[in-house]
């Protein structure tokens, strides 16, 4: 156990040195590191709990997606039956199914087979899962039921998440934030992590909005007050509200959309030239501009409503045909909210509603405090352990301390290599590793003590101590490693950071126990040829 071939010794030292060197970029400022070659830039990333920032988990509103899907199926049914000139009654959405009754019994078979064609295989041509988008059933009594399958819903939610991520990215980037990450989580979730953010509320405001913008004509032939009082809304209208000066005013708006936000090419915050109020200016694409020009020409003197997510922002009267393809939205904006609306309009509307289901925000002050405390605890822990080891084992304690120091450097090296995230519990993991990295040494030294008491000569005792203890070290560390691995899988955020440092700590302490400590002791034995073991 105490003999190392020259090459093996060199390899061990080389690995230790290289891994330790990987930690070097962490000691320089990011600006300095940025000038280094790419391969040398890997460094430890501070977790949101240490540098401050926001962690927001958003979930796609499945009900919203289901509703859209059902609306679409209903429209499809209407179109198919109209095209085939088949009479029907009672086309309704009931729960998660669309029901339609075919009027003439003679048409039923044709209608049924036509409606069955609406159900398509999922996953395109290649993904032959055998699943279909709709379950179409004949319930008798000339009634056909079309149910959106769970598989189709999952598929749609997956698509929604895919379409949503770039929009969210655009929104977050437009807020001017540094290094935001936007990731899919599971099927229906999106995790947004933004380090070092001054105003977490602003982030939440721009993430939570669907930002569906519509220009719709106001129905002036019916009174909105009557609609509110009698609870009867004309079939072609929606009853929406406009908030002005803290008061809500009802507005009857036509269901038909003149132009939607999808036709915008640009939106910018600005100020109204006359009143000096904050506004948002926008420009339509060609199709949108043409459509807007046409509608505005036909409706001069009538009010139209600018509707955002089902709320009327403002309902100005069309004074003249708007032909230039650009316009402005004024409402009760502040500079901030005008800017936010412009960002939302530029990034586009989300395909479905998003709900924030988890939010963790750490201010930069707390992060700084945590770093300070983590450092202090690490130094204190290290000093205590180093002194204790030296008092217990003397020279061999010193060897152990060297091994532990190298160990900690190697942990940072591996963390850097993996670009891993260091969190406050992660620091706790490192401190704890210091406590247990010495355990391997303790196991070896205690075994050597025993062998010496058993009457072996110094060198033979050291040799036997190493060979017997290493098996135990392996066994005992693997159990802790399993715990760390499980924690890594189930944990998120800071807790995962703990699992990472604990796991890496175990790996590096195994490495040092099996190679470095042995090499150090072996070199000492070769050099000193000891007659007695000084422990």
């Amino acid at each position, binding site marked *: 156990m105490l003999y190392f071939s020259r090459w093996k010794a060199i390899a061990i030292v080389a690995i230790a040195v290289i891994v330790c060197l990987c930690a070097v970029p962490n000691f320089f400022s990011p600006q300095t590191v940025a000038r280094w070659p790419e391969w040398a830039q890997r460094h430890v990333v501070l977790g949101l709990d240490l540098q401050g920032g926001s962690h927001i988990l958003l979930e796609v509103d499945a009900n919203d997606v289901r509703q859209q899907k059902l609306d679409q199926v209903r429209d499809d049914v209407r179109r198919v039956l109209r095209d085939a000139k088949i009479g029907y009654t009672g086309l309704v959405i009931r729960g998660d199914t669309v029901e339609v009754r075919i009027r003439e019994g003679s048409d039923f078979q044709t209608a049924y087979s036509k409606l069955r064609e609406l159900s398509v295989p999922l996953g395109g041509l290649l993904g032959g899962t055998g699943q279909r988008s709709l379950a179409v059933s004949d319930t008798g009594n000339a009634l056909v039921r079309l149910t959106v399958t769970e598989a189709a819903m999952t598929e749609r939610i997956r698509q929604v998440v895919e379409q949503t991520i770039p929009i969210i990215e655009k929104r977050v980037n437009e807020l001017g934030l540094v290094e935001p990450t936007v990731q899919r989580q599971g099927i229906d979730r999106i995790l947004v992590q933004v380090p070092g953010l001054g105003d977490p509320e602003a982030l939440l405001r721009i993430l939570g909005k669907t930002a569906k913008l519509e220009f719709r004509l106001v129905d002036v032939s019916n009174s909105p007050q009557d609609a509110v009082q009698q609870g009867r809304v004309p079939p072609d209208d929606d009853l929406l509200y406009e908030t002005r000066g803290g008061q809500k005013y009802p507005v009857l708006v036509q269901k038909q959309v003149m132009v939607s936000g999808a036709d915008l090419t640009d939106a910018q915050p600005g100020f109204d030239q006359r009143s000096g109020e904050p506004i948002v200016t926008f420009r339509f694409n060609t199709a949108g501009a043409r459509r807007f020009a046409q509608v505005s020409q036909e409706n001069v003197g009538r009010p139209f409503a600018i509707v955002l997510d089902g709320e009327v922002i403002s309902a100005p009267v069309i004074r003249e045909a708007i032909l230039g393809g650009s316009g402005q939205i004024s409402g009760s904006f502040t500079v901030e909210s005008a800017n936010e609306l412009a960002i939302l309009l530029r990034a586009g509307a989300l395909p479905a509603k998003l*709900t924030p289901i988890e939010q963790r925000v750490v201010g930069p002050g707390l992060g700084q405090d945590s770093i300070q405390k*983590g450092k202090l*605890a690490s130094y204190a822990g290290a000093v205590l352990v180093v002194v204790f080891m030296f008092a217990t084992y003397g020279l061999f304690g010193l060897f152990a301390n060297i091994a532990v120091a190298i160990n900690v450097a190697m942990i940072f090296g591996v963390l850097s290599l993996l670009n891993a995230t260091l969190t406050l519990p992660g620091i706790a993991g490192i401190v*704890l590793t210091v406590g247990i990295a010495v355990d391997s040494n303790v196991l070896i030294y205690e075994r050597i003590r025993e062998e010496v008491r058993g009457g072996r000569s110094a060198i033979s*005792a050291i040799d*036997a101590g190493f060979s017997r203890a290493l098996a135990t070290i392996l066994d*005992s560390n693997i159990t802790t490693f399993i715990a760390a691995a*499980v924690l890594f899988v189930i944990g998120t955020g800071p807790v995962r950071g703990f699992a990472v440092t604990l796991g890496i700590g175990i790996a590096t302490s195994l490495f040092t126990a099996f190679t470095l400590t042995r090499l150090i002791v072996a070199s000492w034995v070769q050099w000193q040829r000891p007659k007695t073991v000084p422990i």
Partner: protein
Amino acid sequence: MRLLRIVPDDTKFDFMRFRRISFPMSAALSILAIVLYFTHGLNFGIDFQGGTLIEIQAKSGTADLQRMRTTLSALGLGEVQLQQFGGPADVLIRIAQQPGGETAQQAAVEKVRGALGSDVDYRRIEVVGPRVSGELLYKGILGVFAAIAAILVYLWFRFEWQFALGAMIANVHDLVLTLGFMSVTQIDFDLTSIAALLTILGYSLNDTVVIYDRIREMLRRYKRLSMPDLLNVSINSTLSRSIITHVTVAMSLLALLLFGGPAIHSFTATMMFGVVLVGTYTSVFIASPILIYLGVGTGRTEHVETPAPATDTPAPPAKASPPAAAKARP
């Protein structure tokens, strides 16, 4: 230089006799812990219960807890808890899960911010909705069981099944007592607690495995030693290591406890209890003696005299050297 010897070289403590005290004691404590769990319950943090947690720091330097309490309870947010957290300016506000689904939680934060205004710095805001908290709890429980199962399988491969079973009983004992501790102290039970529990699991087993390793070695080497004697020798000869290692771990944890700040306070306190107090006790007084009841070494006879081959003869086990072992060595 005189080196520190925490455990004298010739320690011969009769751990096995102590099992008549330790087993009933552990059983009683475990039952107490379970009773506590059901009567006192755990203080679920927002990770597992949902709700809102806001850490604030008064800009003036001292937080007027009384006034904040009146202000916040007037908001009609249900149960609002305030607690000094670290320095005199730091306050931790907990708001129970709001009825009305995910968005209602966000609204509650807005209300608090509105009420406290700009006199305070918002150092941390955590909002966990009902769906996420349910999943986190499920994942946490699953994780603990998965870890126990994985470790069991590993031990079963490396040792015999009796050892794996003994370790598992010791393990569950550790977890139950730690949960009891968390129930008594009403420490926040959240994701970091799960991390603490899993670490306790790992370290307690680490300790158990070291002793088991020695027991296995002794079983192979000394065929004539009676089981209780063999266990005693095994524990005594690893005792120094157990103590020294736990002193170093305790030192690390102490440093975290004293200087690590309030954010990881409950985490380290739990770990201190679980790793240092319970874990060590369990490996020595529960995990080892239980092997006798699980039937390890029942096939050992007093007649078979098989001295180990001379080439492989290791040093006799410390000064505890039982007569049989001494004779086995030529």
